[in-house]
């Protein structure tokens, strides 16, 4: 079973994402900010990460930069999932090492399509 880490400061979004990804047979972990997510990644690197951009303590962009510099941090497929839908944000996220990008709001089909695109489904 593949492991996906859902990183979002909204418990509602985490719950919705968990439900969708569990439907695709992922084992789910949750973190409410980048710092907690980084700690979890140091313990066990997930296969995929669904990552919000704007979060307190450490945002998604900073988390991604830190993640990619960790040993083994280049392996998780990172799908940004954010309300930031401007081209400049998307480009910045991709340059920082994201593999895919979901603009909120999303649904099961969009999440499935993006995780399929990165080879996790």
């Amino acid at each position, binding site marked *: 079973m593949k492991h996906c880490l859902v990183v979002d400061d909204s418990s509602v979004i985490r719950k919705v994402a968990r439900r969708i990804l569990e439907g695709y047979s992922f084992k789910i972990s949750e973190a409410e900010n980048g710092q907690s997510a980084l700690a979890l990644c140091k313990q066990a690197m997930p296969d995929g990460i669904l990552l919000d951009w704007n979060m307190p303590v450490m945002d998604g962009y900073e988390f991604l930069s830190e993640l990619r510099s960790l040993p083994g941090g280049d392996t998780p497929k990172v799908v940004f999932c954010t309300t930031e*839908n401007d081209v400049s944000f*998307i480009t910045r996220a*991709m340059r920082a090492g994201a593999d895919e990008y979901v603009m909120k709001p999303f649904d099961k089909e969009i999440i499935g399509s*993006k995780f399929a695109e990165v080879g996790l489904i």
Partner: protein
Amino acid sequence: MTPTEFAFLARFLKERSGIVIGEDKRYLVESRLGPIARKAGFASLSELTQRLMRGGDTALAQSVIEAMTTNETFFFRDGAPFTQFSDVLLPEFAKTRAAQKRVRIWCAACSTGQEPYSLAMLLDEKAAQFPGWRFEIVATDLASEVVDRARTGLFSQFEVQRGLPIKLLLKHFTQEGDRWRIAAKLRERVQFRTLNLLRDFSPLGQFDVVFCRNVLIYFDEPTKADILGRIGKQLAPDGALLLGSAETVLGLNAAFRPHPSHRGLFVPAAAGAAPSAFRLASAVR
């Protein structure tokens, strides 16, 4: 709506669009035609049907037909047909069409354009391998409203997230407010036309590939067989037909047979003698 009125509507839709509507789809007729009736100022669906029965209102007839069509589509839908086009058909055409450097593709039920634009993007990615080639994409649909939309190349945020990798979005689209428009050079690659598959489509000319996906499922068997037969006449002898994942030619028309190695891909039955498609089948096994 009385049983007589419903029977008239079912017959009207079958004759004009090929769509088969049984009694079990009464709810669908009511939910889709209700807004058309209100917009046109009819007090009920019965009134609308009575007006259709009297005839002469072509705009109303077209609105009814278009409201009953299903326009579900998304970029690179089902994946496999695009992989087959890219990895199976294009390498074969590189050999068999090397002299004329021309390939004609028909998307026979293009809806809002995601299928032909997916092909246009795919061909753009392959452009370096086909210098000087002309890939002509003709995209048709019964519903003029969706064809007009397809022609604009403008998609909602929701639509561009369905099946379209983010890298292709960044590469081929520009943001216009909360929508996204596909690049002019890709729009120019696709010729959109309104076309009813029940009518003569021979003026479109001969094609090397026909995508006719997820449309035959709405027709009865004689209509499917008729359309497949006429597509067969428009297809090059070494061409290919791609149907939806739930569709087949088996038992419908002898003009085609399934490709032995690729589900959803069909080749002219006569291809056994010459044919690149079968040469290829053995090559890819």
